[in-house]
């Protein structure tokens, strides 16, 4: 039992009637797991930089009018994608694409897909140790999400885009379950445009079967006060490929966590991301790639640009278990600080039990280069433009991790928009 538990228990009881399967015992089970742990404190290393203070208040709030949001949604939809729109944590079919009729793709919103398998998967994730408490809380309070299954050998060319917005001032819990069957391929994009949620808590459970590939992009374009906490739990089978990319641009707190276990040989796990922060923003990236078997590769590339009093965190852990010979794991975290008051925290951690492996990690912290600035100014660009060009140059190569050109340009455009927004580049 934890000191905060009574508060959460009250709110849990109040929230249940409105939730799908609200009174089911599995929700109680998940809640009990959460209650036993309580919210992770900032004394825990993995939560040192992410304050959960917003969760200690009221968890429910006013939902926004979904009709008013149609325009916002339209502006963020990726052309040609299959769109699933979640307003205040609930699937809104009227704003979404038709989900039937795509060969090899079975997709539905979670609230309508709560069969035994899915419920087990929800409840059994999280709750083992205090760092996972929010996964358990998500299980207790989940309102919606998707369940996606891509059939064996199927290749879904249309990106699947989940859009989260219109969240109330409370806590929103979304759970997505993605099952990539052997030899299948798909691209999943999550876009959060939340203007005001206290906490958007998204948990993804992804399994990539043999020879399958998932490209998984996350756009954290939340509004100024929002806290967005996203965790992806991932297992990779033989010869499978996962390519994750996250843009941590909006929100007061954007936290991107990936826990990947590589269980099959010759698999590859790529994680890349860009954190942009100003004001007092926190951009927190926590990764753990666990190499359990031999002959696999992983590659992590994260870059941050922090202005004003913003801070970035990269806690990237790679475990190479004793059997995982011939692992090739690289990790790099580069930071650019635009103001003396901005901070970057880079904490790579390699835990290696095998002896024949290649593991490399590097972290750098720098600022804008005066010679480069002068060169641009000597060609007529004003200081502001010169700075933006250099910052965009600094992050440019990270986008190369996105294989699809249209998506790459979409993400580049979003980052560029952020960097041209208010509050950037004037705190030096």
């Amino acid at each position: 039992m934890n000191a905060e538990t009574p508060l959460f228990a009250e709110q849990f009881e109040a929230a249940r009637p409105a939730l799908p399967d609200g009174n089911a015992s599995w929700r109680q089970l998940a809640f009990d797991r959460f209650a036993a742990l309580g919210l992770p404190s900032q004394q825990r290393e993995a939560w040192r930089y992410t304050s959960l203070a917003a969760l200690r208040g009221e968890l429910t709030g006013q939902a926004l009018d979904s009709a008013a949001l149609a325009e916002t949604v339209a502006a963020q939809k990726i052309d040609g994608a299959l769109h699933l729109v979640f307003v205040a944590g609930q699937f809104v079919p009227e704003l979404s694409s038709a989900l039937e009729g795509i060969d090899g793709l079975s997709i539905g919103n979670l609230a309508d897909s709560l069969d035994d398998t899915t419920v087990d998967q929800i409840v059994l994730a999280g709750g083992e140790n205090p760092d996972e408490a929010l996964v358990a809380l998500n299980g207790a309070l989940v309102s919606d999400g998707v369940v996606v299954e891509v059939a064996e050998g199927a290749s879904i060319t249309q990106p699947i885009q989940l859009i989260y917005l219109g969240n109330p001032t409370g806590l929103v819990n979304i759970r997505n379950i993605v099952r990539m069957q052997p030899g299948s391929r798909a691209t999943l994009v999550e876009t959060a445009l939340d203007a005001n949620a206290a906490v958007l808590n998204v948990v993804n459970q992804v399994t990539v079967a043999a020879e399958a590939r998932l490209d998984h992009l996350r756009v954290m374009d939340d509004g100024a006060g929002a806290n967005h906490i996203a965790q992806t739990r991932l297992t990779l089978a033989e010869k499978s490929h996962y390519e994750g990319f996250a843009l941590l641009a909006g929100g007061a707190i954007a936290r991107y966590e990936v826990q990947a276990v590589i269980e099959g040989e010759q698999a590859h796990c790529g994680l890349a991301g860009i954190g942009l922060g100003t004001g007092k923003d926190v951009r927190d990236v926590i990764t753990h790639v666990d190499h359990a078997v031999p002959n696999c590769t992983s590659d992590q590339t994260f870059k941050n640009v922090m202005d004003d009093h913003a801070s970035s965190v990269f806690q990237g852990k790679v475990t190479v278990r004793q059997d995982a010979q011939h692992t090739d794991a690289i990790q790099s975290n580069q930071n650019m600080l635009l103001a003396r008051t901005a901070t970057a925290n880079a904490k790579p951690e390699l835990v290696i039990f095998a002896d024949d492996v290649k593991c490399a990690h590097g972290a750098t912290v720098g600022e804008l280069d005066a010679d480069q600035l002068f060169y641009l100014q000597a060609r007529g660009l004003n200081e502001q433009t010169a700075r933006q060009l250099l910052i965009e140059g600094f992050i440019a190569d990270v986008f190369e991790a996105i294989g699809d050109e249209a998506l790459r340009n979409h993400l580049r455009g979003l980052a560029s928009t952020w960097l041209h927004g208010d509050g950037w580049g004037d705190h030096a």
Partner: protein
Amino acid sequence: MLEIQNLHATVGDKPILKGINLSVKGGEVHAIMGPNGAGKSTLGNVLAGREGYNVTDGSVSYQGKDLFELEADERARDGLFLGFQYPVELPGVNGMTFLRMATNAVREHRGEEALDGMDFLKLLKGKIADLDMDDALLKRSVNVGFSGGEKKRNEIIQMAVLDPHLMILDETDSGLDIDALKLVSAGINLMRGPEKAIVLVTHYQRLLDYVKPDFVHVLRDGQIVDSGGPELAQKLEKEGYAAYGADEAA
């Protein structure tokens, strides 16, 4: 075009320029030669407005205006071009994008319309053809991984496209192979005109065989210690700088 009077400048606390006087008129080509460390690049940097170079005395007027009233980028938009001795690498900054932005900054300042991608490409193709060069370099990040000669060529392309009035070319001939030197020289000659002025900083007479200067100056220990016509460069090539005294600066 450019009037430099009694210019003194320090880098950090160190006095480097110690009273430079130089007058450059439209249509003229001046060459500045001098031993390593004499202050040639410092002069270029001071004129271009680099931070950290402090003017402690003297004045410079450019097109009738007090040059030091203008920031570096304003000078550039006003048509002052510094060809860098060591062009800077800009990782992730695409050459084409960069040059179009610079071109439009200059054009807007001149009251001309900004060029869109297509129109810029047209302008660029024309200039590149005049220079007998190709645009492969512009498709990469600016100067990143370029050879020394390629960097210098890239400076010339930028100069041709930006169409400045006063060009200060700091050792643009260094590191060029024989063919590239001819191309670069031809590119510089294309820029000559009654409204244009060029200041060539060079160590070698060879460049001056291709780009005939009207005046040659010797810069030593922060001062112009000799001036003359093209024959002065030939004399320096043979005799070096010994005649101007032992080099205390180095």
